[in-house]
């Protein structure tokens, strides 16, 4: 197996794991968004590695990377909007205090 591909995939796996830990363990909305960013970063590494080491001739791989980057930016924009609304009404962005959102 290509060692460069394996190294990149291991990096992606580690970022995914750290991000998952962050999403599940953090109580603050902004910290939680950082976890989501790390999970998406793991996906980015995998996509670039797949493009470079498997299908370097097809630029649809790079296109996917651009789409994931867009998703990252959108997640930040909508997340901060929710945080702003939450802070304005409740004075806090702690998710422990947002149990009323539970269905």
């Amino acid at each position, binding site marked *: 197996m*290509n060692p460069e591909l394996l190294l990149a995939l291991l990096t992606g796996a580690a970022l995914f794991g750290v991000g998952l830990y962050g999403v599940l363990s953090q109580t603050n909305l902004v910290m939680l968004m*950082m976890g989501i960013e790390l999970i998406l970063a793991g996906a980015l590494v995998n996509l670039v590695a797949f493009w470079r080491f*498997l*299908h370097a001739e097809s630029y649809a791989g790079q*296109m996917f990377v651009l789409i994931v980057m867009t998703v990252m930016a959108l997640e930040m924009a909508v997340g901060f909007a929710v945080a702003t609304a939450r802070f304005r009404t409740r004075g806090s962005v702690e998710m422990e205090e947002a149990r009323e959102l539970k269905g």
Partner: protein
Amino acid sequence: MQTFFIGFFGLAAVVFAVGVFRTSSMMRSALALLFSQTALGALFLAMQAEFLGVLQIMMMATEMSIMAIFMVMFMMDPGGLGGMDMSHQKRLSLLAGLGGVVLVTGIAAYTQWEGLASATEAAAADEQIRQLGRELLGRSMLVFETAGITILTAMIAATAVAVKVPEQGGSHES
């Protein structure tokens, strides 16, 4: 040489990512995330994806600066001087994180990637940008345009959610 740089920047990205959740200072968390994402940008450069590497570094530098501003706005103690713990269910989260790493690593290690590879030599940077431009404005144009519309929708949604609703009632209602 490429293997060394991929390993080095990959390790740096993971170390800084762990650092995000190991400090009680949110400013330090934001900076650690910025360094982690910058290391990823450098990793992309090491994988000869020049355009994506530079884009990643530029985008994340801006994004993390905005994140740091929001932290100062929303937190009572953005410097973490009070040592407040902002986490819960740590054991479950740690198990889930480790489980995720083991699962994804297992899939990466046991898949026969050689059979899936069609080309392993990357073109030069200028040729890559030319080909990516052709991809964006050719075969993938619908996807590209959809991303644009999605950004517009998210901008409108974010503004609608964050804007202050004028208070109703008071003397007019009664």
